[in-house]
Each structure stands twice: as structure tokens, then as C-alpha cells.
């Protein structure tokens, strides 16, 4: 939750526009996934508000120069949420909206999981869980060596915290005092085989990250005011990395998907899409 000493830099108007952006991102995600017929619906929708805040509130980047040296880095460690990243990149101007319809098709730059070899704006290929935070550490070390102020953001899943490499990376970030890293957990509570706490419990998450030497914020991952305030606050933390635990709902945006584990790796039918579109009162992107 938002703490009392947090400075709220964001205006009501900005929040309104960010929420509208998130709504449109959700619509595009659902359209592209329905068109494609395969992909990860639940974890893309749960991360939408977080990714929207990063791309349209916090991060520095230049879509015309994806390799711009001054850019902030975003690493989608939970690479299966590629649809939310691709949609954000389209809205940010890295690719044309029309290209979203090519998701997972042969020859497309929009691979099933992000591929940095072909996709502009993707820092590193991800998809095999547990590896993104280490990469974020490497980038953060490079920025420290260069004495540059670039920041590194990494989005992890809560199921992903079951990977041992995450905790190796957690130690490394704290050991090297990487205060230019802000990691976020999309804590939607579900993984492919069921509830995270049933498959392999990861709680108490905040205590774990604190014990590993991180500054930890625990927020509602769909509250745009909380997300933006936490991202701002993270920039003021010195001498240690910051972790924002974002409590989210898998499939957030429509009752069709919300909290339903079966939508981890499946896409909506046309009928389900219609219901969701009514709830999101949306317009189309992919036709």
C-alpha cells in the first residue's frame, strides 16, 4: 500500500490517462491472443497496469533508437507475458500496431517468448524462468561502471520465485548495492498447475526479499497511484536494490479470466472475447 511518507508526483489527470492506456493495452492483448489462438492470457493481463506504468510514466526510452545509451532497461523475466510487452512496445512506437496481429506466426518478430535478436525494444530474450534478474544485475553493474544514471527494471512472476537462480541474483544485487535496480513481482497467486501456495509456496515474499537485503514495497498491482508512487519512491532508495511486490489478479480486466488458472496458457474463444470486450468496452486492433 501507499505509505504516508511517499511523495505523490503523479497528477490525477496523468493517472486517468494511464488507466485509459492500460484499458487499451488489455484490449489489444486480448485481440492479439484471440487472433493467434495460443499464448499466455492470465499473466499478461495481471501485469498490464505495471507494464503500462513503466512504459508510459516512468521509463526513459526512444522508440526510434532502441539502443539509445541513455535509455532505462526493462527485462520481462516472466517472458511468457510477451503479449503485454509487445502491446506496450506498439503503444510506445517501437513497432506498428498492425504487427501485433502476427504474434507467434512463422517469420514474425513477435515470437512466442520475447527474442531480442529480432524484436526492437526487447533487451534480452526471456522465456526460461528465473534468469532475468541476473541479466538486470549485469546491466546495473555496467551502468555503475559507466557512472550513468540509467535505471534497470525487471518484472518477475511469483511462481518464478521458485527458481533458485532468482535468489542467487537477489544476493548479487544486494552485495553490489545495485540501487539502480527496481524489480517487481507480478504476484497473481497462480501458476500453470494451480495456486502458487499449493504448488510450491513462496510466501512470505516481502520478508524473504527484506532478509536478502532489498528495500521492499508491497502494493496493489492494479492501483495506478500506488504503482507510480512506488516507482518514484524506488528511485530515492540508496545503497540497495528495490523490490515492489505487486499484488495482482491473474486475468485482470474481465470476469471471464480473473482468477482462473486455466487461462494461464490458453487464449479466449471468440465468445469469451466478446464478453471481455463488452466489459472493457473496447475497440479492435487486429481487424
Amino acid at each position, binding site marked *: 500500500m501507499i505509505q504516508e511518507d511517499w511523495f505523490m508526483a503523479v497528477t490525477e489527470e496523468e493517472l486517468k490517462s494511464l488507466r485509459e492506456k492500460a484499458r487499451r493495452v488489455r484490449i489489444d492483448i486480448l485481440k492479439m491472443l484471440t487472433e493467434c489462438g495460443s499464448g499466455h492470457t492470465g499473466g499478461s493481463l495481471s501485469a498490464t497496469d505495471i507494464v503500462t506504468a513503466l512504459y508510459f510514466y516512468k521509463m526513459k526510452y526512444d522508440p526510434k533508437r532502441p539502443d539509445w545509451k541513455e535509455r532505462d532497461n526493462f527485462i520481462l523475466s516472466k517472458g511468457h507475458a510477451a503479449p503485454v510487452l509487445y502491446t506496450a512496445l506498439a503503444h510506445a512506437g517501437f513497432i506498428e500496431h498492425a504487427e501485433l496481429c502476427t504474434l507467434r506466426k512463422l517469420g514474425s518478430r513477435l515470437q512466442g517468448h520475447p527474442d531480442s535478436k529480432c524484436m526492437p525494444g526487447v533487451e534480452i530474450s526471456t522465456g526460461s524462468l528465473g*534468469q532475468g534478474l*541476473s*541479466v538486470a*544485475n549485469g546491466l*546495473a*553493474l555496467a551502468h555503475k561502471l559507466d557512472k550513468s544514471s540509467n535505471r534497470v527494471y525487471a518484472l518477475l512472476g511469483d511462481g518464478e520465485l521458485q527458481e533458485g537462480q532468482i535468489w542467487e541474483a537477489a544476493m*548479487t544485487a544486494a552485495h553490489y548495492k545495485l540501487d539502480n535496480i527496481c524489480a517487481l513481482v507480478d504476484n497473481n497467486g497462480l501458476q500453470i498447475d494451480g495456486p502458487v501456495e499449493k504448488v510450491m509456496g513462496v510466501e512470505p515474499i516481502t520478508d524473504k526479499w527484506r532478509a536478502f537485503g532489498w528495500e521492499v514495497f508491497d502494493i496493489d498491482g492494479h492501483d495506478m497511484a500506488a504503482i507510480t508512487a512506488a516507482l518514484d519512491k524506488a528511485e530515492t532508495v540508496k545503497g540497495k536494490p528495490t523490490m515492489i511486490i505487486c499484488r495482482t489478479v491473474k486475468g485482470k480486466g474481465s470476469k471471464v479470466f480473473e482468477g482462473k488458472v486455466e487461462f494461464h496458457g490458453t487464449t479466449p474463444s471468440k465468445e469469451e472475447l466478446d464478453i471481455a470486450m463488452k466489459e472493457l468496452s473496447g475497440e479492435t486492433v487486429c481487424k
Partner: protein
Amino acid sequence: MGGNVTEKVATRDAYGDALVSLGKKRNDVVVLDADLSGSTKTSKFAKVFPDRFFNIGIAEQDMMGTAAGLAIGGKLPFVSTFAVFATGRAWEQVRQSICYPNLNVKIVASHSGVTVGEDGGSHQSVEDIAVMRVIPHMTVIVPADGPETLQAIEAAAEYKGPCYVRVGRSKVPTLFGADYKFKIGKAHVFNEGKDAAIIATGIMVAEALRARDLLKAEGIDVGVIDMATIKPLDTDAVLAAAKRCGAIVTAEEHSIIGGLGGAVAEALVESVPVPMARIGIKDTFGTSGDQEALLKHYGLSAGDLATAVKEVIKKKR
């Protein structure tokens, strides 16, 4: 040049020295180790450039990912630990975070093969060439001596893309002089030979040269080729040797499955199938012992090579 044994240097020591000289020339060079810097000799770099050295602790998977991030951030990372950990413990991180995105990371692993010695089979990597060679984008280099290691490290630094360089713990004879020029993907032919050719890599190059001299006394003319780059393989050199000699023996301190022997067999069978023998570890794990005893135990001595050459010559039509 060739077989002139004047001094002995461990390739890991040459690596440590190469890093220091590279670090002086290029300030984008950074080095990572997983608590084995004294053994891998990255400690030499750490001493001169403490700010560009990162000890990641006993966490090889994290180390590979961190190196990937440093590469994206414009640095030239060299990553070191024992071969068994670099290529085994962290194989999937090497695949996913380094090779799949084709990042400019150099993995230089020491303590390869059975000449790790007394530590035993848990620490003796006999599979690393195979499991690195199979990953797309990966270049695999196994230097034979100190000077070749120095050059291989410089070449890897110049090359853009992931490289795996395999160095060893034990001291090996110096085979190359200062005039030698190593090129990635290019074999060095010590002598062409007539009756058979030994294609060797790493510490087995010195054994191959010894075997050549043993056979010479028996009137057998054997060529010796140093195949320091296993991927991309110098197929031209392999096929030329097969055409010229009609029989090939490969020699490596590694499993006969999937390493140099595998690579050479793949090249031969598709174009110039000739009788061939693979000298290496015969699908088994290592064991404790001193270097010399182990080479003998696993059939990797010059005498074993000479025997294999004579056998393979018999199979020629």
C-alpha cells in the same frame, strides 16, 4: 616450430596473463568468477583491475546471466569457473541468456578434462566440448599451449559473439613460438604426413607430436594437425588430411562422444569417409589420480595414440 619442448606452462596461467594484457588495452573488459579465481587465474586480473572484477560467489547460473547483462550494457565480459560448472551447472543459462540472444560473452573454463587430477571424477569435465558445441551461435576453442591460449583469448575478444574457451590445470609443453598466429576456425598443420593424420586438440596436441616421433622411428609418416577451434570446424583441413593420408585419428582429453572426434567424424562421413579412430575418454567418468597416471589409465598417452594410428592404417583399402 613443433614438438620443441622447452618450457611448460598451464593454459590457465596463460589465460590469467592474457586477461591482464587485454584489460590494459581495453577498458570494456570485465571479468566474473564464481569463487575460483585463484584456480582459474582470473585473480591476476582482479589484482590489477579490482573495479572490473566481479566475484559472484558460488552461483554459476547467476554469473552467466550477469555476464549477459554486462554484455548488453556494452561491456566485454569474460566468465570463468571450472569447466564442469560453467558448462554443466549453468548450461541452460548459457543457452538461454547468452547464446539464444547471441551476446558477446566469453566463457573461459579451466580444470577441463581428467588432468584436473586428484579432485576426481566429480570435478573432471569430459562432456563440456560436446554440450557447448551443440548450442547454436557458440564458438568452441581449445588451445594447446600457453602462446596459443594468449592468442585465442585475443581472438575471442575481437570476435563478436559467444565463445567457449577450454583451458587446463596442468602444465603443458610450449609448442608455439612468438611468430604463431591463431585464427578462429583455422587448424594449424604441424606436418602433413602421408600414412595417417592425427587431429588433436588441447593438451593432446603435444601427445600427438610425441606419437608422430615414435612412429617416425618405425618408418610411418604421420601428419599432426592442431584443431584448436572445434566449432566452427576447419572442415577443409579435415577433408584435405583425409584425402592425403586416407586415415584419421582424433585425440582429445574429452569424451569420444560429441567432442572433436564427433565433429571430425561428422565432417568425414559426409564427404570423405576414411578409416578413423577416436582417442579420448570412452564414455566414462574420470577418477582421482595424478596427471600422468590418468593419461595412461584412460589411454591418452603418446604410445596409445601410436597404437591407434597403426590400427587405423591397417583398415585402409
